[in-house]
């Protein structure tokens, strides 16, 4: 699973799709971090609209990107969270790490 990444001004949007577990998180992480370090975005938007499954490895993925972004002075926005992953998100208190927005991002 490869995350699709789009840029607009200093916002980098990552469209995640499929399943996030320990296996796929490693692959997704490598792609996102390479793009973050290359573009140094002011805002990183993680769009979960296409996610069908996520376990706590997804939480680790978000926490790790939050830390990297904070070190670079950027902010994290999470959007289009499907109902199926909201339970694991709430358990982890992820809303404390970034803004959660409901929005349609047009490509």
């Amino acid at each position, binding site marked *: 699973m490869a995350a699709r990444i789009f840029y607009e001004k200093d916002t980098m949007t990552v469209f995640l799709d499929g*399943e996030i*577990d*320990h*296996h796929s*998180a*490693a692959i997704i*992480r490598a792609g996102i971090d390479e793009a973050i370090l290359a573009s140094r975005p002011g805002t990183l938007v993680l769009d979960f609209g296409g996610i069908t*499954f*996520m*376990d*706590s*490895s997804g*939480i*680790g*993925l978000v*926490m*790790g990107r939050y830390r990297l972004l904070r070190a670079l002075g950027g902010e994290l926005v999470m959007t289009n969270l499907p109902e*199926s992953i909201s*339970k*694991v998100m709430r*358990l*982890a208190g992820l809303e404390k790490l970034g803004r959660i927005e409901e929005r349609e991002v047009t490509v």
Partner: protein
Amino acid sequence: MKSTNEMKLTMESRSVNEGFARVAVTAFTAQLDPTIEEINDIKTAVSEAVTNCIVHAYPETVGRIYISASIYDNLTVRIKIRDSGVGIPDIKKAMEPLYTSLGGERAGLGFAVMESFMDKVRVRSVPGKGTTVTLEKKIRGRDE
């Protein structure tokens, strides 16, 4: 209580098998007619337990993960996930939310997820011998 149906499977501790393990267990549980939320709960808990085997039990090697699931008359499913890996020296500590022995990208929420998504979680571990995690959930289905 005697089980009315059961299944067993053995797989290697390769991360690519995480998806297979959670789908296999939930496919077996489907005969209890669970709701989508119940399926998702079981899928997530199994994924956490299997990931623990891959990441913690066999950190440098590929070992075997033994999964069994039993269904009982009262519509309960009991899932056992066993490894013969390094074991957990301090189970209480390992189960604390946000505790992780690895740091970095691990959130330390595996057991917290299992406990909040299942009705019962039991952990038995002997350092140097391995760990067994038992997950139990009563399937209430659409009657709820």
